[in-house]
């Protein structure tokens, strides 16, 4: 196992080789690796910038080419640091190019909770993983335009329903401030930073503990969860269904096409 990080983490003990790169040099490292895979010349000064040596990178490339089945596990240290989606795109390209020599894949390391599950469900329901806008009655996807942080920071939304998340403790302050300004409804088994800023907090049963559900493993394998305990609170699904039923009873202001889309939920 080769570990690439800007500092020694606990994973170093489990790794065979640790490559400590300079912060913000992910794209440069991956691009040099891509050049070495294709046996292209690499400028020494560009290698130095990364904090690694050409020998280290060449050895890494040789090991990857020799592997029977390689996997890149990548996390927020790659996708949310300088370069962001360009870093992820570069790594996916490297994985694709390595398939000329051996089998290689890339898999994102996900955060706490069921992030993979949310992506998977949105994907098979709409074709997109996140940042989906239903305003026209059909799904449209555009990160930066329809993504939650952007909508909140721009102040585009005038109400919010928060489910299975705590943006009040994770999003940039301008987004949190907007959630506090508008009527926010939060469904959560616990008191959180988001529940505190919400107009309405509905306590729900904890999925997997006191409510049934499905957790998705990082490799997208669904795991059915049977509740071990009983809860006096409703499940997230029951609450959303009841809100949906109540909304349907409201006078119709949508166009006919949109009404049909709403009924399919």
């Amino acid at each position: 196992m080769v570990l690439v990080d800007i500092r020694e983490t606990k994973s170093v003990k489990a790794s065979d080789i640790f490559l400590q790169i300079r912060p913000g040099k992910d794209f440069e490292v991956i691009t040099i690796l891509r050049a070495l895979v294709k046996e292209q010349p690499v400028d020494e000064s560009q290698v130095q910038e990364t904090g690694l040596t050409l020998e280290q990178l060449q050895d890494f490339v040789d090991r990857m080419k020799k592997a029977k089945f390689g996997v890149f596990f990548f996390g927020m240290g790659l996708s949310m640091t300088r370069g962001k989606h360009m870093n992820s795109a570069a790594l996916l390209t490297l994985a694709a190019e390595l398939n000329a020599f051996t089998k290689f894949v890339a898999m994102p390391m996900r955060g706490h909770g069921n992030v993979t599950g949310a992506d998977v469900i949105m994907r098979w329901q709409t074709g997109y993983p996140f940042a989906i806008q239903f305003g026209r009655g059909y799904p449209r996807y555009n990160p930066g335009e329809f993504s939650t942080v952007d909508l909140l920071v721009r102040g585009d939304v005038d109400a919010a329903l928060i489910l299975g998340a705590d943006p009040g403790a994770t999003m940039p302050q301008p987004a949190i401030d907007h959630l506090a300004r508008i009527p926010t409804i939060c469904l959560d088994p616990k008191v959180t930073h988001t529940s505190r800023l919400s107009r309405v907090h509905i306590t729900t049963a904890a999925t997997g503990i006191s409510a049934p559900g499905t957790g998705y493993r990082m490799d997208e394998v669904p795991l059915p969860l049977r509740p071990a305990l009983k809860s006096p609170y409703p499940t997230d699904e029951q609450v959303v269904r009841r809100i949906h039923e109540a909304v349907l009873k409201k006078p119709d202001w949508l166009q006919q096409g949109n009404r049909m889309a709403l009924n399919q939920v």
Partner: protein
Amino acid sequence: MAAKQFLLNPSRTAKQGAQINIGKDCPEYEAMVTTVTMNADDMKSLGVADGDSVRIRTEFGEAIFRLEVGRVPEGLLFVPYGPPTCKLMGGDTEGTGMPLSKGWEVEVEPVSGDAAAG
């Protein structure tokens, strides 16, 4: 004492992940997300010690953190992400949907006990 420039890296930790399932509404969570890890040499040059409080400032905001000495590279700081790091985070996602969450250029300034408590 003068302020110094660092690169701050908010990150996830396994302990923080476990604590989220216990609850965030408690002192344990509060302590996790306000504890910044700094290199021992950086602490010396900043004139601070393990357990001292510092004010960390970005172009977007500032928050008070408690320092903890750790094996991290010089010039880099690490902290489990949470409400204090939200104050330091910019809202621009550069069209990606996610704001820059690592490698923030920050100014670190020691604060006296009174300011830290406030």
